[in-house]
């Protein structure tokens, strides 16, 4: 087990190395640098100064080594070209909270509603709730989140004028007096959660149905246990194991999905920063965000695999058993 985890961590480092190299060299291929002179040509001396200040006068592999040294040792990802008075780290620190808030609410909704719907659908197969769940699952899996988001906007913001079109109230207390002021959370979270919710509902339904047919469930029923006890102690415990795999599919998608949701609803989080950074050719910012996502992405894969062995002792990682 320890050997397996060590191997996985090594390969994670390798992936991050490859991602960083590829990103870095790609970034420097971008036509038109951040100090493009088409609008206001600089005197050569001034340009040289600027290039030296940002280290852009050195050969590219030296630039890369410098960058990685600062990034790994000092957690310093350089200075964003779009806001030279702060650092990349500070900018990310400022905007990650919103993205994390959106993500957290989404995960809560997706798991809460997804598992509930899945269990209900499994217990009432071919009922109308089952059919609706199947329909939502199909919609959530196939239709992109930004399309769902536009439909929500068209209906609830434009047609009915019930909810605000966008924005994100980042204040921690959503109640002013007794009034709920975070109505701008509702649509982004629903649009964002529909995809993962669909996957979770589908997984839950099929694994609950599967476990319901097992012998131990029948035994539990035969010895007179109540429905609730059977569901909580026997069915859910076993049915939720495959959910960990679902987690491995969902979390990485959430990481990139935020870009679209933040664009539709004009939320000032990391995803929106990523897009503006691309339009502004802000190398340090893109580089840092890309590394961050790649890091979280590979970490998710690693953790889901480890959690999987921990929950289900029948799974043994590695060909030889490892543990």
């Amino acid at each position, binding site marked *: 087990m320890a050997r397996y985890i060590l191997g996985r961590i090594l390969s994670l480092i390798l992936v991050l190395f490859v991602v960083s190299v590829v990103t870095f060299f790609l970034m420097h291929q971008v036509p038109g640098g951040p100090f493009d002179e088409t609008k206001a040509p600089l005197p050569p001396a001034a340009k040289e100064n600027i290039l030296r200040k940002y280290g852009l006068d050195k050969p590219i592999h030296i630039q890369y080594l410098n960058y990685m040294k600062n990034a790994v040792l000092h957690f310093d990802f350089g200075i964003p070209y779009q806001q030279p008075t702060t650092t990349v780290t500070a900018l990310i620190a400022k905007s990650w909270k919103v993205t994390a808030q959106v993500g957290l609410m989404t995960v809560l909704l997706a798991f809460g509603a997804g598992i509930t719907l899945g269990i209900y659908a499994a217990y009432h197969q071919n009922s109308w709730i089952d059919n609706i769940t199947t329909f939502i699952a199909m919609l959530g899996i196939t239709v992109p989140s930004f399309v769902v988001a536009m439909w929500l906007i068209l209906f609830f913001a434009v047609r009915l004028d019930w909810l605000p079109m966008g924005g994100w109230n980042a204040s921690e207390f959503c109640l002013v007096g007794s009034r709920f002021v975070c109505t701008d959370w509702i649509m982004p979270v629903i649009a964002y959660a529909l995809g993962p919710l669909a996957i979770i509902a589908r997984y839950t339904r099929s694994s609950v149905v599967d476990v319901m047919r097992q012998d131990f469930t029948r035994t539990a029923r035969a010895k007179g246990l109540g429905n609730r006890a059977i569901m909580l102690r026997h069915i859910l415990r076993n049915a939720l194991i495959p959910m960990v795999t679902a987690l491995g599919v969902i979390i990485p998608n959430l990481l990139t999905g935020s870009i679209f949701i933040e664009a539709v609803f004009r939320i000032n989080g990391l995803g929106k920063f990523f897009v503006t950074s*691309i339009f502004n050719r802000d190398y340090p910012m893109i580089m840092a965000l*890309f590394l961050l996502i790649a890091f979280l992405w590979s970490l998710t894969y690693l953790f889901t695999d480890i959690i999987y062995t921990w929950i289900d002792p029948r799974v043994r990682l590695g060909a030889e058993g490892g543990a």
Partner: protein
Amino acid sequence: MTARAATGLDVSPAGGEGHRTLWHDAARRFLRNRLAVFGLAIVLLFLFLALFADLVAPYPYDRVYFDRVLRFPFELPGHPLGTDEVGRDYLSRLIYGARTSMTVGMAVQLVAFLIGVPLGSLAGYVGGRTDFVISRFIDTMTAFPGLMFSILIISVWGGGITKVIFALSITSWIGIARLTRGQILSLREKEYVEAARCTGVSQNRIILRHLLPNALTPILVSISFGIPAAIFGEAGLSFLGIGINDPIPSWGKMVGVSNAYVRVYWHLALFPTIAVALAMLGFSFVGDGLRDALDPKMIE
């Protein structure tokens, strides 16, 4: 009666005419699946629009009418779906948008097939060090955030249809390669392959005649799910404003642009979102139908 088709134990060299093949059975099962047929109808409709956009569309996609900017559906007699923010016929742009979506979807999967299948079969059949290298490569690529990487590539090399196809192809072949490798690995040990080897059939012939045809059905299913994924990728990139360049229409781009006008000009957002959703649903239904129809265990 269908055991022959199911086992794949077809020893006769030419398969023979007249008997019921796996494909024959699969087609029957597929056509009995209502959702799959519905999906197929949508897919065929979009393919038709994509192929014959020049004949079907009432206007060229880039014809601008400065006096007809932002008109609602049916406001003007010649524009049933209205006009967009610079005065182009919206219906025509939607129809040409099908061409963009279908081209990207198919091209990306074609590339995925051409890279993934040879690489996967090589790894699965040769094994040993070749397999090790290819598998590690595949593992490393899996850990790449695919869509982010496409965004990165587009932002470096610019948009346009070929570049979008290229950017989406970089990670699209991984699934197929992994699948093909697994299939070949398991099929390699089957008795009929062993029999072929014993009778002195050459390696190439074993791969081409015995292994690949049997590995083909899951690959086909994977491709039919890969097409909507690629369509989604293109729509997503264009939605962010970095995919297809003006004046070529793209549904994703139309949705992205409409975001600024949606409070009043609802039609700009509604029609392209419906088009994207229909295309994705259509291909997914076909994929589901194919998977069920091609599974020999599903024989009634």
